[in-house]
């Protein structure tokens, strides 16, 4: 079983980059490019400019351009907001790092709170509670009467 998983992992590791280097897929690019007028990805828009952009992508795929080249051409025409995902470099990298940072901070906060609460609960459980003597006497009387 372990051998099979290892073989599958190695195969994926080798085939993955090879597949990514192949010709771009129209549907993939349409899902990664935003229509500038309607602010949805091209695959969800039928506006005139979205239709025109789909045609542009089709023509440039046929011409042999890579996905990165087509995206770069569209960014040159319409600006970086045309990309559904911000680039993973420069200032835009913050869009990727900030949520991860926030998640890490959240995990640390929850861990610290859980640790603190569990310690306090332990402390509460081990502490010896003392009752007021008068109250203790009354409790004993009530329990004795209850037993009778």
């Amino acid at each position: 079983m372990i051998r099979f998983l290892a073989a599958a992992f190695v195969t994926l590791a080798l085939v993955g980059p090879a597949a990514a280097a192949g010709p771009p897929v129209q549907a993939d690019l349409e899902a990664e490019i935003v229509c500038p007028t309607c602010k949805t990805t091209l695959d969800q828009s039928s506006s005139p400019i979205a239709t025109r952009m789909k045609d542009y992508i089709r023509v440039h795929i046929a011409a042999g351009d890579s996905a990165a080249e087509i995206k770069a051409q569209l960014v040159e025409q319409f600006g970086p907001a045309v990309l559904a995902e911000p680039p993973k470099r420069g200032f835009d990298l913050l869009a990727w790092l900030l949520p991860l940072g926030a998640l890490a901070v959240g995990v640390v906060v929850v861990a610290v709170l859980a640790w603190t609460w569990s310690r306090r609960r332990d402390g509460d459980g081990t502490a010896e509670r003392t009752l007021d003597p008068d109250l203790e006497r009354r409790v004993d009387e009530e329990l004795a009467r209850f037993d009778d």
Partner: protein
Amino acid sequence: MTGRAKTVGQGIAIAAVIGLLALLVWKLAFGDGQGAAGSLAKGENPVAPAFTLSRLDAADGKLSLSDLKGKAVVVNFWASWCIPCKDEAPALQKTYEQYGKQGLVVLGVDAQDFRQDAKRFVKRFGITYPVVYDGSGSTLGKWGVTGFPETFFVDRNGRLVGQRIQGGIDTERNRKAYDEGVRLALGEPT
């Protein structure tokens, strides 16, 4: 958690909520909202939002609105894929030819469009007035443009006058407002 840490945490949370509320109020009170078009609709005459964009007919040439200071300017936002833009193009060209000697310039702003498509459009309709290219639509928010075509009138002092025209200028609905806008931009009595 100690009582002091709890108080500090609560203080930070309350401060964050107050900060976000303050941002919301500030945005509602002073935010761009509908841009210059919003001010115009309230009867104000705001200064036309400045821009510097590349000229469509010259890859390295730039044109700023401030370059046209002292002239009356008809600013027309359009795109080659917009049908009413095609219908109104001849009327805009006619305005440019008719009032050019009086110091009026029609300035086309091609936005959210392919540069090549826009060039073909200009050639097809024989447009000779200056056209700038704003592929990303960076000017639209400041002007309050919500669709294409839209037309604004800038007087010789650089202030917006008349009405913002949404839709083709050659339509029956807009023709009167367009003619009035041209006159106001030129400083003629209406």
